């Protein structure tokens, strides 16, 4: 029986990394992700459960909680939950018990590509990519946006560190957009 080897969204056997001037653009493939949507009338209960899992308050509107297990807000009573792939590959099975039917969990791990971007002046880099008010997207914030016609999430973990999550099938196009924006520095 053949063995199946995983490839990254950009098609590499190991996550791809680019250095463009002062910027590092790195594919991130070691997170498992699941969408968590509260079932009817369970919004508060799900927030409590998320708080327990995250060991910090569940993200409010536009919020992003970084950590060993992380989450960001994606809609009304809806979050994306992420945890280490090696430990939580079957992420829905891993967390289904904790939510006890109060939320619908759907595996999202391979629906997305994720790029970590580090470097200076990320606000201006991002302003070439999308219309987010980056001064408001401080550490601990997340926003949904469109980057070159691709629906994405932008997560900010620090002034010099952000993550862009976009649909896996468009990983090449999204990477191209980020790469060319970084090449425009200094802005």
């Amino acid at each position, binding site marked *: 029986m053949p063995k*199946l080897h995983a*490839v990254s969204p950009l098609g590499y056997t190991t996550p791809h990394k680019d250095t463009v001037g002062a910027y590092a653009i790195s594919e991130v493939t070691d997170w498992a992700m699941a969408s968590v*949507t509260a079932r009817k009338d369970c919004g508060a209960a799900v927030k409590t459960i998320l708080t327990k899992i995250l060991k910090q308050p569940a993200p409010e509107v536009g919020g992003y909680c970084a950590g060993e297990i992380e989450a960001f807000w994606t809609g009304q009573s809806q979050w994306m939950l992420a945890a280490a792939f090696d430990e939580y590959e*079957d992420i829905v099975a891993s967390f289904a018990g904790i939510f006890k039917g109060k939320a*619908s969990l759907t*595996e999202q791990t391979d*629906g997305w590509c994720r790029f970590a971007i580090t470097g200076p002046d990320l606000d201006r880099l991002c302003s070439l990519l999308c219309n987010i008010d980056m001064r408001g997207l401080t550490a601990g914030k997340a926003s949904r946006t469109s980057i*070159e016609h691709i629906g994405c999430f932008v997560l900010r973990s620090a002034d010099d560190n952000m993550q862009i999550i976009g*649909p896996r*099938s468009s990983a090449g196009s999204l990477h191209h957009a980020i790469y060319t924006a970084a090449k425009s520095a200094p802005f």
Partner: protein
Amino acid sequence: MLAGAMRAYANRWATAVGDRIAIFANNDDAHRTAHDLHQLGVEIAAVIDSRPEAPKSDNFEVLAASEVVNTHGRLGINSIDVKTPQGLRQIQVSALGVSGGWNPNIHLTCHQRGRPEWDAALSAFVPSSDLPKALYVAGAANGKMTTAAAMQDAVTTAMKIAKDCGLKPKSLAVPKTSDESASVTPFWYVTGTERGWVDQQNDVTVKDIKLAHQENFRSVEHLKRYTTLGMATDQGKTSNVLGLAIMAHTAGQSIRETGTTIYRPPYSPTAIGVLAGRSRDMDFRPIRKTPSHKWAEEQGAVFVEVGMWYRAQWFPRAGETHWRQSVDREVETTRASVGVCDVTTLGKIDVQGADAAAFLNKIYCNGFAKLDVGKTRYGLMLREDGIAMDDGAAARLAEDHFVVTTTTANAVGVYRHMEFARQVLWPDMDVQLISTTESWAQYAVAGPNARNLLRKIVDATFDISNEAFPFMACGAITVCGGVRARLFRISFSGELAYEIAVPSRYGDAMIRALVAAGEDFGGCAYGTEALGVMRIEKGHAAGNELNGTTTALNLGMGRMVSTQKDSIGAVLSRRDGLTGDDALKLVGLKPCRTSDPVPAGSHLMTKGSPIDAKHDQGYVTSACYSPTLGHHIAIGFLKSGDQRLGEIVRLVSPLTNIEHDVEVVSAHFVDPEGDKLRA
């Protein structure tokens, strides 16, 4: 050229636009231009000022109460004719600067629909006195055209802003400036000339404006569009006031009565590319690649754009010189043994919640409430008006968990439709939706050896025999030693077929594993063309049939629209106009002479009737060469088609000179009883 431009060239870039220059003006500022040029060593032939009280100069001649009435020269000016109170004079020049005075930069004040007001003293438009909240204008933009006046206005306005913010500002001293005169007397155009240029960018003349008036294009909006006045890159900065004044003069009214257009951003000419984004050509819009894309490229696949997806149409092999050879081989191989096709692009929507089944029961026109867990069902969804919207298979993975598939083209539209229904139509239902299209790499494995192929892939702990995993079964399995997967026994080709899904990161490896396993049976990969051929052979409707005009009844699925429940579009699908006895019905068509094609888009006519729209009986939606049957086939819609099997009708395409006989047959050319897919 504009006198101000001459001054800018000289002062900023040390460039003289001519060695002997005349200036024609109606204002004091133009004299400053002449003065600056003279200081820099440029010979000033004369300043021609339309005002009788023009300032005098010791350095150059000033002709007061005079006008330039003509110019001479080819590819440049040699001389000008000047009408002076003393008579006509010809003056040799190498350039002529013209100046009608300055206009305040009022553009920003218009961006929130502030309407400029005419200032007769200034002969210009100034910002509206009723500006949007918190918008203040000071200086020349506010019509204060000298440095001293601008400084004073700045101080006054700053104090006002501070007070409006609730502050108590200390008084400010106005900086001292050397003041200059900004006197201007309106002078709109030279009378008696053949052409007086108004918009120098768009070549609009006084004559054009008078013609617009004559043709009754008199409002400023009409004037602009009739003449293209102010529509060049300067957006009327040099011509608008002039044009409006001439229109006002011609119409015998004031400029205030004539009015003005307002301005929209951008203020400076801006390349459209700046607005469109940085990327162009292949990077202009995103590309969506399937998990098997890299492998398909290695096989030399010919791709087709489907939305933003790139899908493999066929996989040419050595010696195949025409696409039909590849497609025929792929169909024949699949029907004889096994074929593998990437179907990842089909939309997948995860539907969960206590009311998931009840929700789908309302979305689909056929019943879903009683679908057993572990089973898949074909579903047809209608638009509110009863027309077929999309179709697909919905698999019940748990009591409260379904996966709905949509067509590739409608994935976004169906998701939006379902979200609308969930949020707006039935907000009290306990239903959660999310797209999983990209999460799973999904492959169709079709053909009599499909099960044998899968036995090499699916872990042995899962029984995929016909008894344990019959037609329309679905379930979670593992493959290749523990990789999580989903298996659906559904068939688009009409063959014994499965769709197998693995997390997308394993999609590349999976296509390689499936094709390698298929080679043991002489199998192959097939692309969207073979997929299309096989579904036409089987008589399955697709986008060509669900074309936004057809109903379930037209599609031969009228009885699927359940009367035991309500669902979106069910009531309106039963409208009289959609259910007449002569309603179009999906039929198969085969040529009476087997060498004839049956091209899509052709129309169907009863034998002996005239060929015109009045006698139209239907049309062909999908056509192909069927390698299985050895001739062309088609499916299409024919009036009362289900009652006309065996009838010979005429297939016509007047545009392409096609007319021949075809036989109306069942749309199910291959395995009409469905024995193969249940094998």
